[in-house]
């Protein structure tokens, strides 16, 4: 019998990667790393943190309440190009659909977003919340 926790998180992230690939920038769940420890990732790119899921079960159905942070990473001195990319993520995800094997999306929406200056690059953090139920 499949591990429900693994299957929902796998389905969730696979669906997000597919969806965000439509933006046309690299989408990473694990960012490539150079031998010297630096980043080998192409910029700008989108990086998905591991999702955090809590039980959202009822007497008759399995469900998960998932918090997902999506990072938009870009280099340069301007906030504008990255924030435009964050807006593209929002247009795709906020109240959007996700096709997941074995699970059905009930709700997907932005909870918060902010930008952190990393000194030469920026990290645009977009936190989404999703409700899913087993289909």
């Amino acid at each position, binding site marked *: 019998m499949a591990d429900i926790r693994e299957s929902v998180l796998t389905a969730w992230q696979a669906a997000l990667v597919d969806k965000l690939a439509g933006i046309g920038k690299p989408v990473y769940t694990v960012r490539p790393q150079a031998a010297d420890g630096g980043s080998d990732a192409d910029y700008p790119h989108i990086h998905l943190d591991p999702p955090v899921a809590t039980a959202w079960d*009822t007497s008759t159905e399995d469900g998960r309440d998932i918090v997902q942070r999506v990072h938009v990473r870009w280099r340069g001195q301007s906030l504008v190009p990255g924030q435009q990319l964050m807006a593209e993520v929002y247009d795709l995800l906020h109240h959007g659909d996700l096709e997941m094997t074995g699970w059905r999306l*009930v709700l997907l929406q932005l909870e918060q977003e902010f930008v952190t200056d990393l000194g030469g690059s920026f990290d645009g953090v977009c936190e989404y919340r999703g*409700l899913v139920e087993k289909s």
Partner: protein
Amino acid sequence: MAKGAGRLALLKKAGTAIAGVKVSTMDCEGTPIDVSDQNSSGMVQLLAGVFTGRQMTLGVTGVEADEVLRNIAADPSQQLYLTDLTFVFGNALAAKDTITGDFFMTKYGESAADDGAVTFSATFVSSGSWTLT
């Protein structure tokens, strides 16, 4: 005595569990007859062995999922009198774990917040005696 998980307590209609339920409740109540008088020394005296107004109330709250109760409650042609409700306790007992009877749905409500799923609640009160089997 085995303890029971709450999720195993189910309210069923026509043998199928109402979907999306997160909390189910069961209350039994009745009112004894007060026969206190001047000779009761200031204490309440109740008529022995006699109850009035005995009634069972069943309730469910949860995430709306199957429209079964909504379709009954929101249809003005429905009488809200249900003869096929079953309440099963969560203890998985071999006997005396199922209640059946005739119930009126006295309240049904939904809440649809913009940052969550549609939730519902419903209340049922018994009409006449129920059966515990």
